[in-house]
């Protein structure tokens, strides 16, 4: 069954067509990856799903329901969580507050309760702290940095904190925009492990945009290939790897062999 179904989605900015009749499905409880060259429209697609961009045409169905007209915060409340390509942590807050912020939509206390920090508001804050600590901070192994301002962290750790914040949103679909870009191998391996655990133990569907082919082929259950705003193909990693159109999109029409090598990297190197 598909948790997210995108059909006929088109988006353009002025004359630029970012997405053209994009259709694909995200099967529930899988790691689904969108790949494609830079500028293919991957992040635009994420922004449409988040509700930040309004596509001119097409539908996005989530758990069978059309999302058109649902504002971004409401989509977050429905369980659509995400991370961003250029880390979007809140620099004025500590790691802990950034993560707690993810739980915002699941909390209720209003201004008055907040001002007094009393009764339900206080209980709710303490409960969230407990949940964040036990389920997320321990799991992602970031307990040593919880009090640090995010600006002081390394790139890899910032990415991890962003993942933590998305998990605090109690996602059903977790959208990760280039989760391992710019990381060293160790950090990539950690991230891959987290993603697989999130799918298996938390039962969360992961929708990911990623350029690192080694990791994509390793952990994806389902891949969609986007080029010039159009879906070229979708399927299992093994099928996608062999598709000549995909190879062409990535490497032009030249040296197919080296392209094939790139798409099917040496397991040792990955």
């Amino acid at each position, binding site marked *: 069954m598909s948790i997210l179904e995108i059909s006929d989605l088109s988006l353009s900015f002025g004359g630029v067509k970012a997405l053209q009749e994009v259709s694909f499905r995200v099967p529930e409880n899988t790691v689904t990856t969108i790949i494609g060259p830079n500028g293919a429209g991957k992040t635009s697609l994420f922004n449409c799903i*988040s*509700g*930040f961009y309004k596509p001119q045409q097409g539908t996005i169905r989530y758990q069978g329901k059309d999302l058109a007209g649902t*504002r*971004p*915060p409401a989509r*977050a*409340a429905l369980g659509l*969580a*995400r991370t*961003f390509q250029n880390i*979007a942590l*809140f*620099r*004025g*807050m500590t790691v802990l*507050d950034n993560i*707690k*912020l*993810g*739980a*915002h*939509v699941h*909390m209720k*206390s*209003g*201004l008055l*309760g*907040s*001002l*007094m*920090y009393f009764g339900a*508001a206080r209980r*709710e*804050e*303490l409960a969230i*702290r*407990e949940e964040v*600590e036990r389920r997320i901070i321990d799991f992602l192994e970031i307990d040593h940095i919880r009090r640090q301002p995010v600006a002081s962290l390394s790139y890899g750790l910032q990415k991890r904190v962003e993942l933590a*914040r998305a998990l605090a*949103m109690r996602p059903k679909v977790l959208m990760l925009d280039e989760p391992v870009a710019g990381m060293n191998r160790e950090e990539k391996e950690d991230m891959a492990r987290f993603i697989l655990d999130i799918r298996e133990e938390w039962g969360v569907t992961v929708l990911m945009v990623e350029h690192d082919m080694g990791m994509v082929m390793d952990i994806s259950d389902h891949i969609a290939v986007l080029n010039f705003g159009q879906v070229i193909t979708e399927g299992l990693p093994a099928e996608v790897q062999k598709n000549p159109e995909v190879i062409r999109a990535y490497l032009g029409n030249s040296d197919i062999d080296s392209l094939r090598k790139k798409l099917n990297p040496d397991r040792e190197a990955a």
Partner: protein
Amino acid sequence: MRIGDAKQTYQADEAIWTSSTQKFWFSLLLLILLVFPFLANAYLLYLGCLVGIAVISTTGLNILTGFTGLISLGQAGFMGVGGYTVAWLSLNTGLPFPVALLLAGLMAAAVGILVGLPSLRVKGLYLAIATLAASVFLHFIFAEWEPVTGGMAGLSLEPAHLFGFTFQSDFRMYFIIVPLAVLMVFAARNVFRTRVGRAFIAIRDRDISAEILGINLLRYKLMSFALSSFYAGVAGGLFAYFYRVVTPESFPLAMSIFYLAAVIVGGMGNLLGGILGAAFMTLVPEILKLLTAALTPFYPNAPVFMSPMLEIIFGALIVGFLIFEPHGLAEIWHRIRRFFSLWPFRN
């Protein structure tokens, strides 16, 4: 050097004061605030009250500008709404002061929400200009709506009262103003321990991402406007009770800039900074007055130059802090504290 603050529960870790040293210093501060009016002379008492009012208003503006990132040039206007509300209530209803102050805050909050409405469409400097427009309109209303505001002459009001007890002296007003200031700073501190405060900061740091993470921007921006102008309204109400007269010129545009300067000099997005900034900016003119008085025997012309010097110092403080110490007095304070808490080891 202080070490060892191992905590056993998350609850303990979420508390405002996490060590007994902090509790000690804070209790000492409260004690000083309590005995201050009994030892201070009339002038110091007057200053204490002014600082208290400024702390409330600066904290309010800090919530909006420092923590939510919405710059406002309307703070004096919101204070005016509070001031006129208290004055009108005092003349027409004779309500006791806590009710009047609450209504002043609520009235200002309502106006604040109205002014904040464009904030979803306009951002940054455009918003600053929208708030500027609001303060022009408010000034116009204060000056022209004679039946209610008394026009250019303004309104004179009765002293604050509660259960037949009147607060006609600075000494008595101190016991309204300062406890209220402490209380309201604490309330603000609480806000930033909870989801509401986090939402404010998130909007300041990255509004678009905040929205995608589930924060309703309009709702929280308006909430920040409401809260900030509530503080301004209460401060304006206290101002009215303190001076017992309000006129359109009591709340000039320069006052809005004064509070912005207090937030900047103290440290944007830092509550302690707001307190330090409010105290500092209130005391600067007074220190200058003292200096002038000391110089007058030698330079009889000194008083003539006081007001221009004040403008210059005021501007230079804003520019200087922004260029050289953008995190304000709070950062200087933290540096001093770090030095002592690590002492005798080098930082």
